[in-house]
C-alpha cells in the first residue's frame, strides 16, 4: 500500500472507462448497419466491470477491470421495407438494437468518471511529490 498504488487504481479506472467509450463509439458507428437476417445484425455491446481483489488479503483494493463485454438482448428493430436492397424474402430488414440516446448518456457518464480518476491521480501525484520534499524546504 502506498500512494503509488493509488496511481495504479486510478489507472485501471481510466482504462475501463476508455473501453466503455470504445464500445459506445462502436455502437454509435454501427447504428445504421442494416442486415437481412437477425443473426448477422450488429447488437449493442456493453462492458461489465468487476473490482480487482487483492490476491493476499481478498480485499477490493486494486481498482477495477472489465469482466466481459456483453451484447444487448434487446429485440432488434425489424422494419418492413421491400424495396431495400438488403431486404429478405419477406421484405424485412433488421436494424441494430442500439439506442442512440442511451449511448450518449453512457458516453457522458464514462467521460465524467474518467475525469474523476484523472483528478484523483493528479491529487495523489501532488501529495507524493510533497511527501518526497519532506524536510527539504
Amino acid at each position, binding site marked *: *500500500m*502506498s*500512494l503509488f*498504488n*493509488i496511481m495504479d*487504481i*486510478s489507472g*485501471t*479506472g481510466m482504462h*475501463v*472507462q476508455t473501453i*466503455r467509450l470504445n464500445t459506445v463509439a462502436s455502437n454509435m458507428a454501427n447504428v445504421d448497419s442494416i442486415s437481412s437476417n437477425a443473426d448477422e445484425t450488429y447488437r449493442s455491446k456493453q462492458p*461489465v*466491470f*468487476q*473490482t480487482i481483489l487483492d490476491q493476499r*488479503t481478498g*480485499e*477490493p*483494493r*486494486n*481498482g*477495477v477491470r472489465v469482466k466481459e463485454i456483453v451484447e444487448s438482448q434487446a429485440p432488434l428493430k425489424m422494419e418492413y421495407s421491400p424495396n431495400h436492397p438488403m431486404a429478405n424474402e419477406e421484405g424485412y430488414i433488421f436494424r441494430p438494437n442500439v439506442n442512440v440516446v442511451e449511448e450518449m448518456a453512457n458516453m457522458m*457518464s464514462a467521460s*465524467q*468518471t474518467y475525469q*474523476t*480518476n484523472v*483528478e*484523483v491521480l493528479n*491529487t*495523489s501525484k*501532488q*501529495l507524493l511529490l*510533497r*511527501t518526497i520534499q*519532506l*524536510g527539504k*524546504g
Partner: protein
Amino acid sequence: MSNSIFGIHESALLVRRDRAEVLANNLANADTPNFKARDIDFRQAIHQFSSQSDSRFKPDMHRTNARHLEGFAEPSTSDFLKYRMPTQPSLDGNTVEAHIEKAKFAENAMQYQATLEFIDSRIKSISGALKGE
C-alpha cells in the same frame, strides 16, 4: 525512535494515505455492479495505531529458527474498513456516490497535506536544534 519524534503525525500520515487509497478505489469502481463503497474509520484506526506503538510493526511471522530475523511490516488499516451507507442506492447494487467520494477524497488530501506540514515543521525544528540555530 521516529515514532517519538513525530508523535501521532506519523500514524496519521499512514492512515490518511490508506484512506486515500480506499477512496480512490471507490471512485475507480463507480460503475462496477454490486461494488460496495468503503471508508476507513479514522478515529478508531488512529487510536489503535497510536496506542500500540512499536508492537504493531511486528507481524505474526512463522519463525522456524530462533536466529531468523523478526519481520517488519507496515501496520494494516483493513480492520477499520467500514461500508458506506448510501443515500440513494442504485439498482445494480453499487453504493458509490461519486460526489460524496470526491468530497471525501479532497478532504482527506487536505488533511494529508496538513499532516505533512506538521511533520515538516518538526523536521525543521529538530534540524535547527542540531545546527544550533
